[in-house]
């Protein structure tokens, strides 16, 4: 008797979950074909690039994604933003959780094997954020200095392997854990893409305290990640990006998001033109 009860309960749970998942996938189909909603992957924790705030989402990636979505036929209100942390980006695209990803996503060969890229839409460089009164003019000046970056990030690896192997690298989970150390003197510099650093330097509470060193240590070509093989979407996004540059919306977005940090941006990259 007891065994039967358990089986019945299990069957009920199973049936429920099957119907629940069925509902879920139905919804998703509607979004895709009906053209009502679009899900876009961004970062939630990078000021200037992709940031979730109490009043919504801000940042350059968000502006680019909104523009592209508009060209694809979705109004700003139709966009569902989804956080895609670095480790999760390829799987999110492969599973179809997001239509495309604009999340400081640098184009490289390993990633190209898994996903396709539209763009690039921005050329960023690895750079340093230092205290305003500090003088660092080249990468090797970092040897012996204390440097902070995010665990496992490309920037941290570059410092360890190429730029300044003798630098003292602190690695934390987020840049926010680094930035207070910069203020208190526990670290001398913060390193990642200059676009992200500009976003931090431009934040109200840090204005004037920190500056970008402007070293251009690497080239990071930000692309829009899409599911492998979706060449139709790739063309559409590329067209949208070209239009965005042409009608000056691109310049406006750069100025709005990075401007306050005195960020000297590269000119808008040409589609498919990857700077090594």
């Amino acid at each position, binding site marked *: 008797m007891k065994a039967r009860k358990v089986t019945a309960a299990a069957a009920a749970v199973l049936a429920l979950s099957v119907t629940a998942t069925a509902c879920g996938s139905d919804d998703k189909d509607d979004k895709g074909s009906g053209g009502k909603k679009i899900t876009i992957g961004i970062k939630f924790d990078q000021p200037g690039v992709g940031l979730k705030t109490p009043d919504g989402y801000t940042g350059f990636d968000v502006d680019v994604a909104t523009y592209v979505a508009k060209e694809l036929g979705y109004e700003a209100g139709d966009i569902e933003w989804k956080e895609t942390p670095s*480790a999760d980006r390829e799987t999110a695209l492969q599973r179809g959780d997001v239509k495309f990803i604009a999340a400081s996503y640098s184009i490289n060969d*390993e990633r190209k094997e898994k996903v396709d890229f539209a763009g690039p839409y921005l050329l960023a460089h690895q750079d340093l954020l230092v205290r305003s009164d500090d003088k660092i003019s080249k990468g090797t000046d970092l040897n012996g200095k204390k440097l902070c970056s995010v665990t*496992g990030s490309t920037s941290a690896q570059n410092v360890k392997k190429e730029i300044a192997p003798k630098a003292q690298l602190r690695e934390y989970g987020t840049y926010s854990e680094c930035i207070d*150390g910069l203020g*208190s003197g526990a670290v001398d510099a913060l390193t990642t893409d200059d676009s992200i650093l500009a976003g931090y330097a431009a934040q109200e509470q840090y204005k004037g305290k920190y500056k970008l060193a402007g070293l251009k240590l690497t080239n990071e070509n930000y692309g829009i990640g899409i599911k492998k093989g979706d060449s139709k979407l790739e063309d559409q996004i590329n067209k949208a990006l070209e239009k965005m540059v042409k009608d000056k919306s691109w310049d406006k977005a750069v100025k709005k998001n990075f401007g306050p940090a005195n960020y000297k941006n590269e000119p808008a990259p040409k589609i498919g033109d990857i700077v090594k």
Partner: protein
Amino acid sequence: MFDFLEDYDLLEAFWMTVKLTVFAGIGSLVWGTLLAAMRVSPVPVMRWFGTAYVNIVRNIPLTVIIVFSSLGLADVFGITLGAGDDVDTMTFRLAVLGLGAYTAAFVCEAVRSGINTVPVGQAEAARALGLSFSQVLGLIVLPQAFRSVIGPLTNVLIALTKNTTVAAAIGVAEAALLMKEMIENEAQLFLITAIFAFGFVVLTLPTGLILGWLGKRLAVKR
């Protein structure tokens, strides 16, 4: 499929995991045993301290302890544990400190449960012979207690091995940190995760088997 592995030093990363486990393991065994002694001691202040320590520390998430040891102890209070300006050594020692302090709470409870398995008559007989508290504990009770808690202590050690991955949060170059780097570069989430999962099986399975066998052989039959 596995050719990208050549670019990474898996062994070095897992060696760091082993080092973290061993040092934190020794530290927590010593400190945990002391805490257990405090919890059964006749001095109320020590009993109170032992209880408070265990109940507070084991309820703080390990990530909080580890990140505090780096952001708090090192950056704010300037405690570098004798590592001077060498960041790698400093974060390693801070991680050992954090892991040891946390694991000690669990070691303490395991040892205390072992003490409870020793019949009261043993301690009473020892006291009747005129042994002091530390002699009763060190010569009569703890040797018997340890032999009966090898199993639980093995579980604590295995948990510690896996917990070392939290040290990646402050940049100790161990397995989890290498895993993050590899995922960032290679975009091969499942393959890389599987490799590291396998690595931890290689570390923990033999530990469990050997110590389990030892525990059976040494257990006091009552």
